[in-house]
């Protein structure tokens, strides 16, 4: 009786361990390449690439059905990472995004806002606060700077402004891509704006 219990418990444990190991060893990611690309994408789900989110863009990239330079929030760095993962040729970003601008967030001019809620619907990260016919505002900490709310505003009251550097959000400057990179200069220009 005891022998039977011990044998069966240890058998069950042994097989359980084997299957547990196999579950880790043979873990299936939907598509390894797409998964990898998805990780470097900024996950704003802004849709500026023309795909309905970061994951679909990553999947299209993994099948080499699209260009590497479509992620606007990600900018040059993400474009280079993507081309490294997929092995596709790196491509110039569009004019307006090549400049290495500092992180910008949306600001709503609250005097002009008519409370149309159009920008709220557009915001992919739910960073805009407000209700119909009431003034809206942007939760600065949540805004990813995807600029999707700017074109939809019927009264043009949304402005992209460089995020204020505070003690909380200050970070070491990112390492420059090239030694002669003019990131610093561009940052200065951006700050002046």
């Amino acid at each position, binding site marked *: 009786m005891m022998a039977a219990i011990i044998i069966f418990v240890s*058998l069950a444990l042994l*097989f359980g361990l084997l299957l547990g190991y*196999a579950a880790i060893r043979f873990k299936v990611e939907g598509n390894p390449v797409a998964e990898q690309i998805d990780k470097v994408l900024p996950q704003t789900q802004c849709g500026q690439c023309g795909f309905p989110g970061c994951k679909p863009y990553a999947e299209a990239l993994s099948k080499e059905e699209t260009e590497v330079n479509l992620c606007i929030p990600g900018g040059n760095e993400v474009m280079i990472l993507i081309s490294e993962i997929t092995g596709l040729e790196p491509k110039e970003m569009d004019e307006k995004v090549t400049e290495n601008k500092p992180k910008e967030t949306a600001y709503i001019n609250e005097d002009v806002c008519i409370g149309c809620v159009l920008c709220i619907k557009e915001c992919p990260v739910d960073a805009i606060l407000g209700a119909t016919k009431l003034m809206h505002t942007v939760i600065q900490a949540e805004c990813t700077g995807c600029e999707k709310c700017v074109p939809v505003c019927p009264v043009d009251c949304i402005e992209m402004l460089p995020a204020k550097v505070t003690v909380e959000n200050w970070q070491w400057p990112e390492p420059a891509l090239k030694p002669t990179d003019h990131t610093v200069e561009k940052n200065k220009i951006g700050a002046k704006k």
Partner: protein
Amino acid sequence: MQEYVLILISTVLVNNFVLVKFLGLCPFMGVSKKTDAALGMGLATTFVLTLSSVLSYIIYTYLLQPFGLEYLQTIAFILAIAAVVGFTEMAIHKTSPALYQVLGIYLPLITTNCAVLGVALLNVGEKNDFIESAVFGMGAAIGFTLVMVLFASLRERIDASDVPAPFKGAPIALITAGLMSMAFMGFGGMTH
């Protein structure tokens, strides 16, 4: 060496598990609509059968017999089979997603493929040793794969031909299986 060849011939042809012993009819009917799927199912079952017959031999000889627990063999074998099937499923999912899609629900159902348990129990009944068990399991699996592929090719051709309406689909498949079984009776008596 000769006895292993005899075991192989016996399990593949003479005592074919599907057509002579009528074990494993579920996947035989279920996954035989397309030859690729049948071949994939056959290969997955081959892997499971060989491994599980060896594993059940080890469990029986080294764990159950010394303690006089032979009466628990069925549950012990099922446990081993389920573990091997689970392992195979994960391995196939990782290595061949296309095959995984094709096999679908029939892959976990290898667990309940009575041929797998049948082989384990027959191994014990015939007092096969380690290598004989492995050969027996592999032979049974090769026989299963062979019959699966033959039957699937037959069904593919039957699908294209003009079958009378009442016989379309499963009925003609069952009749075909019966005819195949009768054909395999021709091997009867070659070995025991």
